């Protein structure tokens, strides 16, 4: 047995601000609990029944008091609502330039894939002081990626991507829990987030055993699955060219348009008939069941790399 801890580590940029709100609500809770308890105890003693025949005067109620104790809680919850919501909004968008890591949950392990190709299971190496955005999906049931020390949590769903971000502020190893019940060994779906110095992280990345980046793996899969036969880069094939698609507007046959993102690419691989690009026929077969979630992430990474126009690629290199 260890001692009695009362506060989790504060190891991310948002941890402190979430704790401030937590302490504020704790203070409000304590104040009102003590207030109500004290008033009740005071009345219990002061107005205890002194003789069995006692008949207190009836009191109807008091409109001013009702207004007062409707208004005070309203103001307090309004403050907490605004505080909690604005913090949540700030915390929900990753800062520009966040590095990306891809996480797949499955019964009962966490798999992470770094764009440079390094893969790990039940561990997640991240550099200190850099914003990290995770794009996550599940191969089976709903899981939940929870790092208490970072105060971040997000469900990991089958069939769609969710994301969260954090920026670690302390070196060390922190618990990664699955916080959504996922079956027999839910409690064993434990991982560690390992925060290391940035140069150490680079060295760790370079130690990749596969020697293949996610983009490269995606390009290989793109050829192996014969995607390249139709999706000709010059746009003359039966399927649209994927150059410059990612991050740009796509016009569909139903007249709608959208910005091509991870979820759209994923859907187009698995359910190609759902959204047809204007000017093309729905001829593509579904790859449902033929690719693992990690392979799909590799393909998404590859298609994303094609999306960068040459100028943007230049910017990326600088």
């Amino acid at each position, binding site marked *: 047995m260890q001692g009695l801890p*009362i506060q*989790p580590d504060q190891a991310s940029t948002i941890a402190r601000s979430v704790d401030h709100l937590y302490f504020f609500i704790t203070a409000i809770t304590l104040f*009102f609990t003590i207030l109500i308890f004290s008033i009740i105890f005071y009345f219990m003693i002061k107005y205890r029944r002194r003789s069995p025949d006692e008949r207190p005067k009836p009191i109807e109620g008091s409109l001013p008091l009702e207004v007062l104790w409707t208004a005070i809680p309203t103001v307090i*919850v309004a403050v907490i609502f605004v505080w*909690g*919501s604005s913090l949540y909004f700030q915390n929900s968008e990753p800062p520009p330039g966040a590095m990306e890591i891809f996480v797949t949950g499955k019964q009962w392990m966490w798999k992470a894939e770094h764009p440079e190709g390094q893969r790990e299971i039940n561990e997640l190496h991240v550099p200190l002081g850099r914003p990290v955005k995770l794009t996550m999906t599940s191969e089976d049931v709903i899981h939940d990626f929870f790092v208490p020390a970072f105060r*971040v949590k997000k469900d990991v769903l089958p*069939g769609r991507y969710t994301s969260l971000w954090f920026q670690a502020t302390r070196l060390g190893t922190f618990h990664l829990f699955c916080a959504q019940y996922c*079956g027999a060994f839910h409690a064993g779906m434990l991982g560690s987030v390992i925060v290391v110095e940035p140069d150490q992280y680079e060295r760790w990345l370079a130690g990749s055993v596969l020697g293949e980046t996610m983009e490269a793996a995606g390009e290989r899969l793109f050829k192996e699955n014969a995607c390249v036969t139709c999706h000709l880069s010059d746009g003359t094939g039966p399927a649209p060219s994927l150059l410059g698609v990612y991050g740009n507007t796509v016009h569909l046959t139903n007249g709608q348009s959208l910005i091509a993102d991870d979820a759209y690419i994923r859907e187009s691989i698995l359910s190609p008939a759902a959204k047809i690009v204007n000017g093309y026929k729905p001829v593509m077969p579904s790859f449902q069941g033929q690719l693992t979630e990690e392979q799909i992430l590799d393909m998404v990474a590859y298609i994303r790399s094609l999306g960068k126009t040459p100028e943007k690629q230049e910017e990326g290199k600088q």
Partner: protein
Amino acid sequence: MSTATPGTRGNAPRNYLNADYGWRSWLFTVDHKRIALLYMVSITFFFVVGGFFAMLMRIHLIEPQGALVQPETYNKLFTLHGVIMIFFFLVPSIPAVLGNFLIPLMIGARDLAFPRLNLLSWYIYIVGGLFTLYSAIAGGVDTGWTFYTPYSSTYSNTQVTAVAVGVFITGFSSILTGLNFIVTIHKMRAPGLTWFRLPLFIWAMYATSIIFTLGTPVLAITLFLLALEHLFHVGIFSPALGGDPLLFQHLFWFYSHPAVYIMILPAMGVVSEIIACFARKRIFGYKIVGFSSVAIAVLGFLVWGHHMFVTGQSIYAGLIFSLLSFLVAIPSAIKVFNWTSTLYKASISYEAPMLYALGFIGLFTMGGLTGMFLAALATDVHLNGTYFIVAHFHYIMVGGAVMGYLGGMHFWWPKISGRKYPNGWAALAAAIVFVGFNLTFFPQFILGYLGMPRRYAFYPAEFQVLNVMSSAGASILGVGYLIPLIYFIWSMRYGPIAEANPWGAKGLEWQTSSPPPTENFTQMPVVTEEAYAYGAEEEPSRG
């Protein structure tokens, strides 16, 4: 008003308990009071079963690696604990036992509007309960009481369908009970009993009945769809079959959040009755307390999304659900302030029911205030899915609903059984329950903040101290629940005979004999005053 007088053992006057004998007279009764007792025995049985599972869980969690059972078994324990406690104890507890017994008595009616339907409700409840017990024996179920898809529909190989069918069937019992109560309260009030003369318990039961009839069908549909996917692989919730993984959660919480108010509103009604009686005061702000019950029932339907802040739902949806969740807090706060003010310049006596009622206010206040951590988006992200949630909803459901139920049982037991229980033991039990409860669940708030997720069969060692504290508290809580069970049973045979109105209370139910005759009142009561006319100008009544 009543012509019946308290009798002595041996030549007791005719009442609903001695009107007839034998098992047929119970199983085929259409008397709302006898049906209430059928429910009382059944839900007590399920409470003991659910409590037994809780006890095994708390023993298991004394050791970080798990002291008692395999993880698969632990998962079945918490699932069955939740399913049984919620659907077979908490939801029917106050409405089906005290509501059934008291609504006709409180409004001066002979019975509920549909007595046969009332008996049917009990049979439906029992069939649903048997289905669930069957599944527990035939291998159990391991999805958690929330049955989240796609785990429940396509991955779990336990008795998901049997339990879903059990809960589905029981839902109809709730719907019919709610319908019966609504019609009864609308159509069968005694002459002179206007809406604003009704006891607040009736207001609370009315609000609860609305949730029963509007919310439960959604749960039934949801479970039906779940069974459809589980049995026939129709793609509804599982993405692998073309379904939407979050749809289930929307549908499930659309019922299950209002279900929280099914559990707490009746307890609020009970507490209003008890406080008025033992403070000899009209409830401060009667109308506002009554309307706040209805406000809670209505707003309760609009907050389900606060269970889903971390599912990846739109942040704007999160914003709306957070706002609405905070709004529900306000009528709850108003009630607490009004109960407290009722004690002002009152004449307070401390019999056992009052101790439970005051315990309720304390624990409900803490349960309600800790809800703010979960309604606020930024803190919910950290606390969602941890022991903080477990602690919060046990403060509401056990600290609130169970305290309310026990308070109500102690208050109306003389009316129900015609006997008194030993007040000293009852006061001691109330104190033990209060202490044991806080010891069990307060450490879980800290565990949750530290990050311990719920539904963990084993856990990192740093959480052990708090888990051991919680388990120790649970053993005290268990003793606190056992004592009333013993003296209630004891009192049925050996308790002193109770008079018609042992507490000097004002409700109509106290104007007839204890226990009441089968027809409730020997002559039709006429109401000329409000429910809480504990006035200075009144004649002092007996005892």
